[in-house]
């Protein structure tokens, strides 16, 4: 899932300055799971905006809407009516959701309400850990199911650096050393031989270094005729 964190309210108050009618737009997917962008959080943020407005005589009119998935146009279109008379949308979906909003409503100011952080997972209630760097060329089969690209502070591919001690990373005594975890995992799996093999320099083209990425599933792409038919149905 995509993990995000709240932007400070002070930053949001500043960003909506000059707008009258504000829509807080949430998403019921990842950001709801990480407790920053679901229906409940939309309500809380809208209340905060109203309170700030009342206390400071801003005269803001704040409305709320939460869609199933803000990253998909089909769901975002649902909001069509609610967005019409709005000056600004504070999107508390991830950065993907906010951009989908901007694409569908190009004349509206879409303001990010979250800081999107990473692809991670809940570790325990209220704690979310980064797991995947989306490098585009997965090597988990070589590293005992633990990703060194994001879980090692230096993205090392050939074992722990000299700063790994007592299972912790040199940058922070709270952070586990990913390569110690990889070592332990490969040991459990009886595959320590993999620790001895040199992993060659990584091809970063499938990663961010190759520019914005595009994945095409040809079997799912519609022909112009099919697109027309689909629009007719909708």
């Amino acid at each position, binding site marked *: 899932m995509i993990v995000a964190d709240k932007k400070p309210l002070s930053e949001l108050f500043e960003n909506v300055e000059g707008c009258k009618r504000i829509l807080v737009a949430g998403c019921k997917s990842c950001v709801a799971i990480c407790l920053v962008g679901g229906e409940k959080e939309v309500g809380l943020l809208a209340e905060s905006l109203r309170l700030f407005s009342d206390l400071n005589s801003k005269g803001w009119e704040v409305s709320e809407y939460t869609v199933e998935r803000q990253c998909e146009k089909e769901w975002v279109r649902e909001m069509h009516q609610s967005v019409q008379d709005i000056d600004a949308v504070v999107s508390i979906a991830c950065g993907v959701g906010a951009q989908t909003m901007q694409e569908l409503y190009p004349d509206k100011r879409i303001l990010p309400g979250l800081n999107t952080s990473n692809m991670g997972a809940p570790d325990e209630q209220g704690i979310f850990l980064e797991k995947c760097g989306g490098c585009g060329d997965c090597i988990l089969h070589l590293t005992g199911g633990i990703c060194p690209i994001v879980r090692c502070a230096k993205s090392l591919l050939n*074992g722990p650096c000299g700063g790994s*001690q007592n299972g912790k990373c040199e940058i922070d005594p709270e952070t586990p050393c990913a390569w110690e975890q990889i070592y332990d995992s490969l040991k459990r799996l009886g595959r320590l031989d993999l*620790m001895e093999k040199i992993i060659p320099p990584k091809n970063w083209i499938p990663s961010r270094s190759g520019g914005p990425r595009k994945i095409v599933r040809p079997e799912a792409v519609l022909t112009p005729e099919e697109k027309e038919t689909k629009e007719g149905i909708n």
Partner: protein
Amino acid sequence: MTAEIGPPKSANPEIVRRYARLLREHGDAFNVTDNQTAIVRMSSFASALICLQEGAEPIMQMTCRDRNRIALQSDLLGASALGVRNVLCLSGDHQTFGNQREAKNVYDIDSTQELQMFKMMRDERRILGDDELEEGPKMFLGAVENPFADPFEFRVARLAKKVSAGADFVQTQAVFDMERFERWMSAARDRGLDRKVHIIAGVVPLKSLGAANYMKKKVPGMIVPDHIIERMRKATDAKSEGIRICVEQIEHLMTIKGVHGVHIMAVNWEEKVPEIVEKANLHPRPPP
């Protein structure tokens, strides 16, 4: 016998010149650090050239933190062209330790891959991606290993990995825990690594009790046993005791089978290196 010359937080070449002149008779080569602990200093490339001008043989350190494969390969060619003959490949201290905490790090490749890449450039006159070099770099390739980091059982395997990647010599993290170092050396000998690579053991002379405690508690991947701390605590003259401990460590290290040399890291205490080398009876140095 190698030692370290830390480039200054300054554009003044005289600081490097002074250290080079001071140390050149007392070591065979000198590590020129590459923005150590991620603090901005004069570059290792420029400092290495200043050392050359002063007749001190530099070992240019090159971390993977700040340069991608394009810059690393390019700088290696440049360094070779200007007479640098030794390079030390290392991943580098993470930027959060230094004075540029908000920097974006590079880590395009890691230190093992860096060794492999440099070896290919030197031996096969090829760069990554197979383009040919008209003339390859002339470089003696160095690696680092830390017998005191974890997991301990992997530390010798990692050395083996660096040897097969191309390391001609290996410098270790500072040895204080002699027992652990001996275990590591013994495992290295079992794999025949001492015959494939020149293992140079690191030492750090302690300037004070505070320095000893700092290294024990704050430097990642460092083990300083209590008996060393005790000696520093009891000493009436901590500086002399620090030198004494260092000389004893060197004498001990030289008796360990497979140890090929000693690397003195006298951080901000470079002027003491000649004294240490002389007291350890390692002076004069043989001609190159």
